[in-house]
């Protein structure tokens, strides 16, 4: 009688505890844990690298307006300003454009047209940043300087945003090239979200006599938090965009209301000055710029993913 529990245990399936599967599980879990270790190590190493600058300037680093490596004075505000302004321009242009493309691909275009166009839009995301930069320097900037900026100045020149000499190089062009770069990213996510909205919603609206566009508006409204997620994802990309912006934005650490003036972004200053940084404090200030980018983009991307996931769940429940 006393050994009955043992016998029952013998009857339990054994496979889960076989040693080869234990190794398999430990190995794969270990690999998965590695990705957490990498991100934590990044945070520690970059944090350590910026420690000198953090100790020296504290929070005033974020509000300092002067960037003078010779005098050892480092303030990040002009770069934060440039990053925010150029990213906002990019998102303002890319959002309606991307939603338009996604709606066309999902709601309107026949399949035979939607497939190739969808692929071509995806290809836009495959073009490297440095190539966009090259194209912006030699094609986009001269074009804007001659055909777009002067008329803009003539009509809206009384606004502070369009003052100054239109050179083609500056925040305006930087924001525009970023808009082109993030459009395929926002489009892809919005497309997935629209495709996840159940077809019954569209049928219901159409059956009530709504036009195609009115139906689309209902679909968009139901997917709005996911679309917000897609836009935030695009914003995250714009904030971290480096090469194309560095090549076109003018690289001058100066806060100016005019979008035609040259600016500077956080990513650009790292790309430009990192190898030239003489002195520990200078290097540390640049690493702190990297730390800011790291934390901001990590949070922004995580937030975007949460928003996008929330739509997935909602539409599943509806269906």
């Amino acid at each position, binding site marked *: 009688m006393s050994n009955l529990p043992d016998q029952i245990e013998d009857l339990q399936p054994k*496979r889960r505890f076989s040693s*080869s599967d234990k190794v*398999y*599980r430990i190995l*794969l*879990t270990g*690999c*998965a844990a*590695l*990705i*957490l270790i990498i*991100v934590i*190590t*990044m945070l520690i190493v*970059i944090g350590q690298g910026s420690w000198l600058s953090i100790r020296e300037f504290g929070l005033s680093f974020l509000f300092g307006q002067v960037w003078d490596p010779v005098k050892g004075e480092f303030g990040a505000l002009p770069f934060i300003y440039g990053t925010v302004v150029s990213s906002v321009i990019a998102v303002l242009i890319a959002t309606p*454009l991307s939603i*338009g*493309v996604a709606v*066309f691909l999902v709601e309107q275009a026949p399949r035979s047209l939607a497939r190739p*166009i969808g*692929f071509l*839009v*995806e*290809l836009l995301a*495959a073009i*490297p*940043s*440095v*190539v966009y*930069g*090259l*194209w912006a*320097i030699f094609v986009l900037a001269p074009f804007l300087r001659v055909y777009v900026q002067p008329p803009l100045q003539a009509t809206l020149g009384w606004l502070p945003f369009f003052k100054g000499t239109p050179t083609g190089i500056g925040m305006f062009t930087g924001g525009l090239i970023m808009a082109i770069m993030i459009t*395929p990213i926002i489009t892809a996510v919005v497309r997935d979200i629209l495709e996840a909205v159940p077809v019954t919603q569209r049928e219901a609206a159409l059956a009530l006599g709504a*036009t*195609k*566009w*009115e139906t689309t508006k209902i679909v968009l409204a139901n997917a709005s938090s996911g679309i917000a997620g897609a836009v935030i994802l695009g914003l995250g*990309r714009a904030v*971290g*965009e*480096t*090469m194309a912006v560095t*090549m076109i934005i003018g690289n001058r650490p100066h806060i100016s209301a005019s979008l035609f003036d040259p600016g500077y972004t956080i*990513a650009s200053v*790292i*790309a430009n000055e*990192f*190898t030239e940084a003489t002195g520990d404090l200078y290097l540390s200030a*640049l*690493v702190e710029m*990297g730390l800011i*980018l*790291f934390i901001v*983009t990590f949070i*922004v*991307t*995580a937030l*975007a*993913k949460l928003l996008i996931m929330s739509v997935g769940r909602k539409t599943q429940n509806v269906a």
Partner: protein
Amino acid sequence: MIERRRLVNTIMTTLTALCAFAVVGILVLILGYISFQGISSLSWQFLVQTPKPVGEGGGIGNAIVGSLTLLGLASLVGIPLGIAIGTYLAELGSGWFGTIVRFVADAMIGIPSIVFGVFVYALVVLQQGYFSTLAGSIALALIMIPIVTRTTEEIVKLVPKSMREGALALGAPEWRVTWDIVLPAAKTGIATGAMLAVARVLGETAPLLFTAFGSRFYNIYLDEPMASMPVQIYNYAISPFEEWHAKAWAATLVLITLILVINIIVRYTTRKGY
């Protein structure tokens, strides 16, 4: 009233179509201009020679070899690791730990590539005291890992549950099911995911600027600076010389052709596969 609604409908439908064609138009403009500008400077010498001072010709031979070396080394680490993590997420990652890993991998894709450059600079270059091929490859591998992870997970999840159950019912241990049944079934998808990651990293410039740095010579050593196509394009592009601008376009044509070919192959195989 109904006329107005119809009118709005027509306007908006036209507008969305215009958006799509505008975006495709931009792509055509960019690719067209690259081909037009690049083809004139393209020659056999350009593909094999090393960069030379202005007026003496020169090419991107060492940058092509450099890019392939950096990419090869990065793939060696990044692809297997990404596949392993992706397999974990698909097969074992339904618990809280899997959720965290998945979330971190997603957020890692959003980290700008230049931040990886800063990280590897502080971790490797600063410790060793010199720019190196090794440092550049590490930076590229780190960028590849989360991309391969997510594509692998999605593909492995598509393998029907019944295949796993069938193998388990025959008494196969878990690891054999994964290794002999699930991964072979998903291999085309995994390979295309890995190729997309390769195509993405092939054009990366920012993380190489202060890790692999750049070089004017052919190089095979891990502990020396290494040239790469994107960095070479950048250096040619921001120079004040017309001749070098022409070289930037030609190098871009080579790079973009490689990237587009990979993307088109991936498109073709995935359409056939799943």
